[in-house]
């Protein structure tokens, strides 16, 4: 278990904190066993393609706090993702009936001379300028490779300006080069939130924290009848709301890859219990998750009633879908915990999961509880997954695999991957809303979309006919893992 230390300005990266890896070739069962035995070793690639970085993921969680302004302390290129998140922010405003506003995002524009003399003064004057212009309730600063290497003391600037302006000015350390696992950026964002925004609880409330992106509000119908109020965090929260998340009765993760650090921090520092079962995907997973929720919220009887009622409602429908999907094969590429969740879903529906390319692997989460291991849950409930590959968005490996495996459908959970299925004529499905597949209803939702995708082949067949391939013929004939230097130490018990 990692110990949350709010005195430290930076949270250690996942590689160090959790022993997380980004390269593995084998089966899911092997990976789970190595993880649990503490013998997991990372593999590196001699050839690699663009990934993502922590600063983008930190920005993802900070940029939709409604009354905060964000300063990205870096060269202007680091701000290239501003509008992507602004677009998401604005779509979410529509869904929540909020007025249309642009996110207030600023870049300090680090230039050549700043790499010699430092960019601290630039940062200070930006903070003052932003405060004047926006009058936000908090200013959050994301760092960059440049600011990190030149050694700007961002923490001191934030502290002194916080005092000067009388609002929280918070540094979030998320330099891209520090971690190969871009989800480390989530941890960085949450560390700065728990360190500087969250206040110690004054009283317990009936709120349940839901650590999520900007997904649909599916927890309303579950929690309200039980007498609890869902608090969807961090996007679309206000600074005031975040101050009080220490007063909640529990924390729900829609995906522990996202919320591992926040869930554990709130439990360790403020005693807010985290629901530790893997998120509710598939029937067995949902049953277990709900039962733990019932226990933590002291609503066990009511939850049993929900489970019975829902089983009666969805099981016959799932049987129907299973019949329709029998014999269909799928390949999956996604982030870690959500990937595990989707594997459960696909297998619940009777699809054969031929393999998966999952962006990284956390052998344990910050709560230190092996019960949270969603991949172990998959293996135990539905059996092993052959061709389980940990691959941080390396499209060349994916293309190679897809070209050989040729599944009936490819499921992707991040941008930049779907194209490779489609170019090979494989119907491809990307669903943005993580909550779409959650719980009992989620199984039905996914089933419907999978059937639609399988049915709609015209576009991909035509695209495949007219596409070029930027990969060499030589490469497509090699083993997909030719560039993976594997020194994985597999102990079988």
């Amino acid at each position, binding site marked *: 278990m990692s110990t949350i230390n709010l005195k430290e300005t930076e949270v250690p990266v996942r590689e160090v904190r959790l022993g997380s890896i980004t390269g593995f070739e084998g089966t899911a069962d092997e990976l789970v066993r190595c993880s649990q035995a503490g013998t997991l070793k990372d593999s590196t690639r001699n050839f690699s393609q663009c990934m993502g970085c922590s600063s983008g993921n930190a920005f993802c969680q900070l940029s939709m706090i409604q009354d905060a302004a964000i300063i990205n302390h870096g060269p202007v290129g680091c701000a290239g993702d501003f509008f992507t998140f602004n677009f998401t922010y604005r779509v979410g405003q529509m869904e929540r009936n909020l007025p249309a506003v642009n996110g207030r995002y600023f870049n300090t524009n680090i230039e050549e001379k*700043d790499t010699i003399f430092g960019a601290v003064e630039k940062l200070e004057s930006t903070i003052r300028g932003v405060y004047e212009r926006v009058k936000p309730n908090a200013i959050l600063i994301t760092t960059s490779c440049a600011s990190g290497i030149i050694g700007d003391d961002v923490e001191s600037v934030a502290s002194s300006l916080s005092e000067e302006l009388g609002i929280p000015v918070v540094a979030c350390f998320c330099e891209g080069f520090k971690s190969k696992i871009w989800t480390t950026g989530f941890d960085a964002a949450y560390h700065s939130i728990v360190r500087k925004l969250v206040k110690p609880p004054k009283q317990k409330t009936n709120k349940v924290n839901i650590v999520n992106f900007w997904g649909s509000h599916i927890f309303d119908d579950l929690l309200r009848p039980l007498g609890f109020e869902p608090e969807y965090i961090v996007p679309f929260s206000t600074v005031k709301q975040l101050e009080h998340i220490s007063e909640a009765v529990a924390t729900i993760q829609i995906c522990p890859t996202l919320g591992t650090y926040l869930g554990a921090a709130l439990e360790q520092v403020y005693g807010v219990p985290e629901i530790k079962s893997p998120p509710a995907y598939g029937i067995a997973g949902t049953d277990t998750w709900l039962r733990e929720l019932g226990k933590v919220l002291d609503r066990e009887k009511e939850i049993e009633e929900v489970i019975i009622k829902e089983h009666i409602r969805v099981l016959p429908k799932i049987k129907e879908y299973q019949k329709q999907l029998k014999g269909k094969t799928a390949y999956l590429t996604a982030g870690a915990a959500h990937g595990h969740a989707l594997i459960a879903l696909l297998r619940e529906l009777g699809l054969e999961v031929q393999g998966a390319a999952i962006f990284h692997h956390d052998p344990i989460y910050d709560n230190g509880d092996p019960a949270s291991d969603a991949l172990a849950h998959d293996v135990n409930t539905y059996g092993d997954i052959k061709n389980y590959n940990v691959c941080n968005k390396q499209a060349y490996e994916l293309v190679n695999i897809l070209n050989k495996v040729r599944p009936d459908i490819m499921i992707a959970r991040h941008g930049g991957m779907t194209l490779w299925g489609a170019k090979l004529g494989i119907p491809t499905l990307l669903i943005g809303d993580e909550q779409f597949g959650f719980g009992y209803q989620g199984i039905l939702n996914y089933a419907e979309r999978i059937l639609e995708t399988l049915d709609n082949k015209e576009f991909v067949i035509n695209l495949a006919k007219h596409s070029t391939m930027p990969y060499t013929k030589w490469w497509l004939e090699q083993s997909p893992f030719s560039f993976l230097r594997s020194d994985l130490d597999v102990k079988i018990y």
Partner: protein
Amino acid sequence: MSKFIEQPRYSCALGAQQSIVAIKRAVPILHSGPGCGTKINRLLGQGEGYAGGSTVPCTNASETEIVFGGEERLKSVIEGAFKVIDADLYVVLTGCTSDIVGDDIGQITGEFQTENKPIVYVETGGFKSNNYVSHETVVNAIIDQYVDKFSPDKSKIKRLVNVFASIPYQDPYWIGNLEEIKRILEGIGLSVNILFGEKSDGINEWKTIPNAEYNIVVSAWAGLGIAKHLENKYGTPYLHFPYLPIGAAETSKFLHQVAKNLNLEHHRVEYFIKQEEKRFYSHIERTADFMLEFRYGIPRRFYTILDASYAVGFSKYLLNELGIIPAKQFIVDDTPEEFQDSIRNEFQHISELRAAEVEFSIDAGAVQAKIKNDERKNRALILGSAWERDLAKEIGADLLIISVPVAYRLILNCGYAGYNGGLRVIEDIYDRVLDTYR
């Protein structure tokens, strides 16, 4: 003046990776942090092209490369790229990490160049400049390290020109604009190296850069450095047309200038221009009564929040050919000071009757506040980016998105340059205006 930027509309030096993606069958190799390529691709471009986006090879610099240097890592990624990626040209671009640490990428790439591999290297650490400036640096590097070496013969070919106009992906309409510029120059009898996009012949075309009789720069300032470099290197003269020609009047003016400089056959040039003008004005004339009589309100004044080439080009066209009057103009491309006076001068004489006020600022958030507070008597048009949506709504203006971030349009081959582009401008403005009525 503030130095920070709210709502950025361009990228850093490494943003020139998109210029490489725009060359047919070329691929950038980034020696940078893990997130750079994706962030650039998110602002510049919709879709990854042939080998951009998630295909771009990258060393994904980590702590190890910062502490111990990243040269070995770069070498191994270059080797892999040659094996895995099917491309004609590979361009190594560095990010902040490598440039601050001081990796000797020239030495690493040099080893491959010695083997006559088609590879080029450029230091484009993000902090060094922006992608307008580094577009020039990158093109010049390709000329010096690749074109010069592989072009079989450097003698001039009559009527062959190189064009340096839209910066790929920074100008979201680059494909359409370059296609139209190529079309009209061919129309007056030239052979055109357009260098980027589908209408280029890729690296074979690049190899004929030294053979051009003339270089044509269609841009306020970015690209001029390439023409000057080529003048020094190959003695090729250049023509600088300092804005994007939009619509018949400016496009004809542009073609006349080219024809004069290159001493082209008068009849052929005049015949082409006449045919194009006839076609252009026939559409305007056919619909003039509709435009004149549409009584429910169309924009009377316009603001631009654009780069200098677009700002001047649109202002000339909208004022002189459509009668929409320039309100204050904002140029947000970080125009170097040495070019600002000549751009101001263009606005000073924007028509025979009128001058327009212009301001240079990289902080578009501040620009928005100024437009909001500007006094307005009539309906306005904003030529800007996706950031302007709320501003347009708030002041009751129509918005035509010309700049990145685009977000609310999908662009295939739409372009605003030339005769065709001018017509498209009218269609698109009226499309947005008419769409506001129930």
